[in-house]
């Protein structure tokens, strides 16, 4: 069974400083991993994905994440936080359901990012 652990429920940074949101996963197979962002009362937007190609993945809005199999981690980073980055972030692992063409996503509980001026 797959699982995702987001190590921090809340991260607070100052504008212009680096962002690190931590995620560890557990999966029986070679996983696909994603980061989604959710602004208040909005749907989830895909930030980036890892699907067994390059281990360093670049996403939208200057975010990137590095897949480290030895550490079972997929931490999300950004060099310089912007006020508009304030949102909730979800780390997600995807696995195939019963050998078919359907995939099941398992979500972490989310990390709320606060950006202070």
């Amino acid at each position, binding site marked *: 069974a797959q699982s995702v652990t987001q190590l921090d429920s809340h991260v607070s940074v100052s504008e212009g400083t680096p962002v690190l949101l931590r995620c560890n996963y557990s999966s029986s197979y070679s996983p*696909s991993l994603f980061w989604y962002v959710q602004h208040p009362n909005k*749907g989830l937007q*895909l930030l980036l994905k890892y699907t067994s190609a390059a281990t360093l993945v670049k996403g939208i809005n200057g975010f990137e994440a590095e897949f480290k199999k030895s550490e079972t981690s997929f931490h999300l980073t950004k060099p310089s936080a912007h006020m508009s980055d304030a949102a909730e972030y979800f780390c997600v692992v995807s696995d195939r359901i019963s050998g078919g*063409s359907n*995939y099941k996503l398992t979500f972490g*509980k989310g990390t709320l990012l606060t950006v202070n001026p």
Partner: protein
Amino acid sequence: SQTIHQWPATLVQPVGSPLSLECTVEGTSNPNLYWYRQAAGRGLQLLFYSVGIGQISSEVPQNLSASRPQDRQFILSSKKLLLSDSGFYLCAWTSLSYEQYFGPGTRLTVT
């Protein structure tokens, strides 16, 4: 390009009343469709998924049901709402490269 719609955006319903939430997808054929519920501070819970018309799989036993009457339409229903049904309901569809794309959500408050 593909677009996913959900309505209504917000809904306030009394306990014991029925529920119908609708999700439609444009710009793709035969998508896999999903319903999630997001309760405050609890992340997302997968409720149902569908790989085709009339094909529904339930992830957790609950007071809700789902139907897929058309290829790009996915409906979430309940005959009698409970207080615990309150939450933010999200519909999603899967692309060929299996990342999921989410609709804008419906905020349901059961009073």
